[in-house]
């Protein structure tokens, strides 16, 4: 590139704004902390019971013995609850200027204001800015943060909360269940198709602060919704923990797509439990892009419970220096004529490590089910590493299962060809990498897709020009 601008990634995105809190719980985790979180939020007693039970389970559960290295997480060195400045601002103008500033730097507000329907921006652990479009209200769609949902729609919340991912599912789900705050709640009534994607921006902006959002999406019969979460977090010196739980109920003939563009700072442990249940003729799609964080362990899962249900996971991971992206998918076929497709693309560079870890189970009776799994990995230099750990458990003969994986480096021939056309090596490399992940990026909304291509370019060359 002729005029190389030195827009170092860390200089550009690696900032943190001064912090002001209304309340910050003490570091560490104990019964009092959990009780005080619940009290601060004025929660009903069943939620407090749920939290306390989950805390017990958290203590009993052991850390996962497989996957990425989690030994550096110190549960006593984390703030479990921070309440940011004044609650819920009604419009963009009401937000404190430093919060607006942070968003401005990321170039978000313009995009948000101009193009997006529902804005639900999360600053620290609580949603401070939320503008539910009138259009959504008219349709009867509920889109709000989880804390509000618990107050206003507690009947619906109680019916579904923690039923798909119970606290004893794993240690981090138990932790989230005990100390959760923030997250989104989406309820789409029968037959309603939401045309615009619902978006929530998440940011962690406080040192040593774990963010534990809890998201619940319920799509009633025949409805259609696309939920998008994007994350851009500033860089910090000490470890942060992000352990979210996402539960999605896709009823008969409904369709839900959940898109994540995740770019945590390079010291965040991102340990997320995501699960969806698809009933008859339902369609569930996870689109999952993991770029940042130091360790990501995330395996969006789908239970195909109803006949002809379809599940799809599109996963992309990028690991650079000091990063381990352990991502994948889990799909369970319980019913006849169910289909699933997993496409994973991973790139490792500069000592990064990407792992695909997947599980597909075909239970007895899931006749005529079809499974297709494809994982492609690119390794860009000799310091990097790529692993593939797919598992397939088949207990039904009348199925069709396919799995394939490839690992390779960028083709020298292709690079040579592009360079002979006058492109620099960097340009050729980033163009090839962007082409490699294109099947995924074309599935995400345009703004994210542009952001993603820029991020990859930035990470690849250290410059955007």
């Amino acid at each position, binding site marked *: 590139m002729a005029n190389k601008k030195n827009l170092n990634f860390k200089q550009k995105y690696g900032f943190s704004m001064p912090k002001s809190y209304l309340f910050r719980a003490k570091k560490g985790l104990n019964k009092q902390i959990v009780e005080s979180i619940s009290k601060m939020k004025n929660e009903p007693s069943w939620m407090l019971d749920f939290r306390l039970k989950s805390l017990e389970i958290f203590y009993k559960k052991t850390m996962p013995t497989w996957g990425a290295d989690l030994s550096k997480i110190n549960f006593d060195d984390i703030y479990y609850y921070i309440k940011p400045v004044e609650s819920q601002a009604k419009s963009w103008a009401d937000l404190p200027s430093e919060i607006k500033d942070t968003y401005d730097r990321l170039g978000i507000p313009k995009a948000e204001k101009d193009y997006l329907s529902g804005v639900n921006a999360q600053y620290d652990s609580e949603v401070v800015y939320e503008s539910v479009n009138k259009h959504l209200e008219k349709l009867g769609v509920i889109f709000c943060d989880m804390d509000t949902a618990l107050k206003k729609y507690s009947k619906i919340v109680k019916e579904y909360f923690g039923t798909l991912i119970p606290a004893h599912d794993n240690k981090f789900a138990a932790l989230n269940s005990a100390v959760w705050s923030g997250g989104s709640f989406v309820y789409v009534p029968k037959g309603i198709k939401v045309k615009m994607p619902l978006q929530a921006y998440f940011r962690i902006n406080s040192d040593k602060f774990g963010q534990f959002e809890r998201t619940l999406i319920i799509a009633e019969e025949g409805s259609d919704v696309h939920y998008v979460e994007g994350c851009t977090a500033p860089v910090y010196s000490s470890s942060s923990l992000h352990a979210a739980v996402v539960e999605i109920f896709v009823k008969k003939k409904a369709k839900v797509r959940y898109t994540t563009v995740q770019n945590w700072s390079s010291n965040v442990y991102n340990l997320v439990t995501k699960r969806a249940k698809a009933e008859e003729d339902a369609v569930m799609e996870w689109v999952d892009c993991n770029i940042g964080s130091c360790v990501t362990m995330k395996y969006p899962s789908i239970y195909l419970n109803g006949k002809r249900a379809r599940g799809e996971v599109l996963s992309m991971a990028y690991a650079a220096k000091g990063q381990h992206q352990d991502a994948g998918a889990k799909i369970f076929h319980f019913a006849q004529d169910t289909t699933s497709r997993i496409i994973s693309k991973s790139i490792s560079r500069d000592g990064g490590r990407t792992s695909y870890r997947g599980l597909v189970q075909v239970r*007895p009776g899931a006749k005529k089910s079809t499974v297709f799994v494809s994982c492609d*990995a690119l*390794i*860009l*230099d*000799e310091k*990097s*590493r*790529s*692993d*593939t*750990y*797919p*598992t*397939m*458990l*088949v*207990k*039904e*003969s*009348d*199925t*069709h*299962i*396919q*799995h*394939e*994986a*490839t*690992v*390779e*480096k960028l083709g020298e021939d292709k690079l040579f060809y592009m360079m002979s056309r006058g492109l620099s090596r960097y340009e050729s490399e980033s163009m090839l990498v962007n082409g490699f992940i294109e099947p995924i990026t074309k599935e995400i909304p345009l703004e994210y897709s542009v952001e993603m291509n820029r991020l990859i370019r930035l990470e690849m060359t250290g410059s955007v020009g």
Partner: protein
Amino acid sequence: MDKFNQKMSFIYLNKNKKTKYIFNSPGKYTVFFNNISGDYKFIINSKDVDLDIFGIIIGKNENIFKINTDQIHDAPKSNSNLLIKGVLYDRSKFLFKGLIKIEKSGQKTRAYQKNQNLMMSDQAFVDTKPYLEILADDVFCTHGSTTGKIDKDSIYYLNSRSIDNKKAENLIVSGFVNEILEILKQRTSKQEYLSIKNEIEISL
């Protein structure tokens, strides 16, 4: 060593009871096993090793086969290629875990791993875990696995040629395993080939 003058070796795992094989010199090696369980390590410590690993598993009744294979590439410019075919009748179970591991020193490796299974009964069970761990960058590795039952159209076609269901099924299964037997024919002595072929025909 030129290609036509390469050392050829054939290792029949069922007879050769070792579980760890180290390939220290260039050459073409063929490993074969049928209907066994065990943990097998294939370590490639030399360049220009061309290793083929073939396996045939035929499960009947309550048979359980559990196979772990490791293809470890510790030297550059070698190839390894694994193909395991499983045919599972009755309540048989087949658990396969295969690992291709390319160490940092294994640049310019080409490694393949493939597991294909035919499910002949509703009660059969397959668990397949084809893993890859790649620490070098200039490599090409693929793995694939397929599991399914016999295509109804194929049976129908054979029926239309006045071949009954039982016979049609047998034809398709023998075609499925013959892909491996045909290769073995060129890799081992006639005597050994015939005895392997005979053994497989009996187990079918």
